[in-house]
């Protein structure tokens, strides 16, 4: 069953169209990663899922209920991209307020549990403005999940967190998923999207360009990528037979092959030129796919500018 059903949704802000004819299904109990360049429509889509803004056209159903007719009922927790909390309240009082507002049955007990869970217990009596940026972010994460909603929408949950804090938030999200919570999260970190999310949705210029599991997305592109580690680095790799584009990652180069091109020919040409330490034919990484989609448009925009 789908936790979220988005059908033909379009959203405009004045003359700017933020989302165009978007349809998407998010299965219950999954972690769905939203990726896309800045300004592509991720946050707008998330706000519409939460019910903060409404589509100009189309419909969004959350747990089967039309969002336009649904008042906030505590079943959805939301961590916005722009962080903001009442800074003069104590951490505990603030979280209890959010918990009560989201319908938690025992706000104080829930707050204490989550403060312990994210190693913030001793910060409970302190004011929010005394916290570091990372701690504030963890507090805001708790505010989003403290009422243990069935759906949590997290806009860039790991940005600004140190690796230890990011790990504890990651573990918390996985625990929530294990208990049946559906998680929608956006990220600019392709590695996180690849390793953490059950499904990935990419939005670009307001339109859906990718949707599905990492496997299915990569399958759609096929094994068209060669990873090479060769002496002399990326020198004249683009001159090899069948190579369409070269992505220099420093020590390693990724060569995208033309459809039907034979990688063995490229390997022979390369061996004739230099010694090769590593050569593998693989499917493109999510980051590579992202760049393939986003870069041409960016270059075109820059050319017009």
């Amino acid at each position, binding site marked *: 069953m789908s936790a979220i059903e988005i059908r033909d949704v379009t959203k405009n802000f004045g003359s700017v169209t933020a989302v165009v004819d978007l349809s998407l299904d998010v299965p219950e109990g999954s972690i769905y990663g939203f990726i896309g360049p800045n300004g592509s429509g991720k946050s707008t889509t998330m*706000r519409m899922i*939460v*019910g*903060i*803004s409404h589509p100009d056209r189309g419909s969004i159903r959350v747990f089967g209920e039309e969002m336009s007719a649904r*008042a*906030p009922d*505590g079943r*959805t*927790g*939301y*961590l*916005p991209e*722009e*962080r*903001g*909390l*009442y*800074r*003069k*309240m104590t951490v505990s009082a603030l979280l209890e*307020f*959010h918990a*009560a*507002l*989201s319908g938690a049955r025992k706000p104080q007990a829930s707050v204490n549990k989550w403060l312990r869970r994210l190693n913030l217990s001793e910060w409970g009596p302190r004011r929010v403005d005394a916290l570091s940026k990372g701690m504030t972010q963890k507090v*805001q994460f708790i*505010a*989003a999940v403290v009422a243990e909603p069935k759906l949590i*929408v997290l806009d860039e949950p790991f940005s600004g967190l140190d690796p230890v804090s990011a790990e504890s938030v990651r573990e918390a999200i996985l625990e929530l998923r294990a208990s049946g919570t559906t998680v929608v999260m956006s990220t600019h970190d392709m590695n996180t999207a690849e390793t953490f999310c059950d499904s990935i949705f990419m939005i670009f210029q307001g339109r859906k360009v990718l949707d599905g599991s990492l496997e299915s997305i990569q399958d759609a592109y096929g094994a068209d990528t060669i990873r090479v580690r060769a002496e002399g680095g990326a020198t004249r790799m683009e001159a090899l037979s069948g190579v369409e584009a070269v992505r220099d990652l420093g020590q390693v180069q990724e060569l995208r092959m033309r459809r039907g091109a034979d990688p063995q020919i490229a390997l022979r040409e390369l061996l004739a030129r230099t010694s090769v330490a590593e050569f593998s034919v693989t499917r493109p990484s999510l980051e590579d796919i992202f760049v393939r989609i986003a870069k041409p448009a960016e270059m075109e925009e820059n050319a017009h500018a």
Partner: protein
Amino acid sequence: MRKVLLIAKRDYLSAVRTKAFVFGLIIAPLLFGSGFIVVGLMRARPDIAERRVVLLDHTAVAGPLIADAVTRANREQLRDKTGRQVMPVYTLETEAARPAEIENQRLELSNQVRLRKLFAFLEIGPDVLTSGNGLSWYSNEGGTGEGRPWLSGVIGEAIVHYRLAQSGMDSVRIGEALKRVSLESMNLIQKDPRSGRIESSGRKNEVAAFLVPFLLAFLLFMVVMGSAAPMMPAIAEDKMQRVFEMLLASATAFELIAGKVLAAVAVSLTSSTVYILAALFALNALSMFGLAPLAMIPWFLLYLIAEVVVLASIATALGAACGSPQAAQSLGIILFAPVIIPMMMLSPVLQRPDSAFATVVSLIPPFTPMLMLTRQALPAGVPVWQTSVGLVGIALFSILIAWVAARIFRVALLMQGKPPSLPEILRWAIRG
């Protein structure tokens, strides 16, 4: 409703737990009332320093006559019944005017006034005793100085007596015949609707009749300003800190604004309760509890709630529309218009509470709380139909403003960047 109460509770506690609230509770009446306090202190301690006045006399007759009359009146009125000196001693010196060098004489005397050697000089023209014209007062007194009006009365009376004596009439007997009568102000007679008896209503306390409505209006003004004014920059700041986006996932924009308005009402009721209790204790301590307008307190609270709902709704919408607390402060004039305009109308309404002007302006909804309250507190009261129409009007107006404000608030909350123009705000109000 549960969410509205939660938001109201949070906002209320965060407002009243601040030092600024406690400080404002004490300081606001002192600041707003400092003018009255100064006037009261000045009345209690009048200026009794000696005042030297030179009479520059063109007649050789009027000078001594005026000096005698002023000295006599001064001696009679110098002290009150308790023996306390309540006015300055006037020392008058007569100087003959020299027409050939009158300009120099005036300049010399003016310089002495500037050097504070003289309080003033009075030039007595040649025709003063016959035509009454030609008395000129030169001083550094302000427009509301008391010296000129007091002397004017005494000198006028002296010259009338002089003229009567010159005509062969007995000025003393005529003075007695011309003695003014004073009107004693009484309350209107009324019939007790239960017993049917006609009740004597006694002498009207003119000071109380003015002070009670004025102070009620003033208290309303002060409490409304104190509870609504901080809201606009506070909401703009919360918006700038991006506090609302997360809250909107748990509560609707209408629940947010309703909670905030309810908190403002609770803050205003807290302040009012403190002020009203303090006033009642003070009146009791001064054995003046009879002056307490107890019957007006429910009306005061009713009008206060209506006015705070209107102003807090406007403050919330404008605060959300602003990009920063500074921008919000610049819109203060729009917010305070519903209390400042009726405050400016208070004087004509107090003077003629039953006039067409007073009736019409007190029925304009945003002005109703202050002006209807003022009129109701006056002894004449207000016809029931007017209070009914006024109440219905302000109730409907409050609901309308809260509804429009909620529409603006909902759109404005998530807007960032350049503050919206007035037409944009109006468009949000209409389209939501």
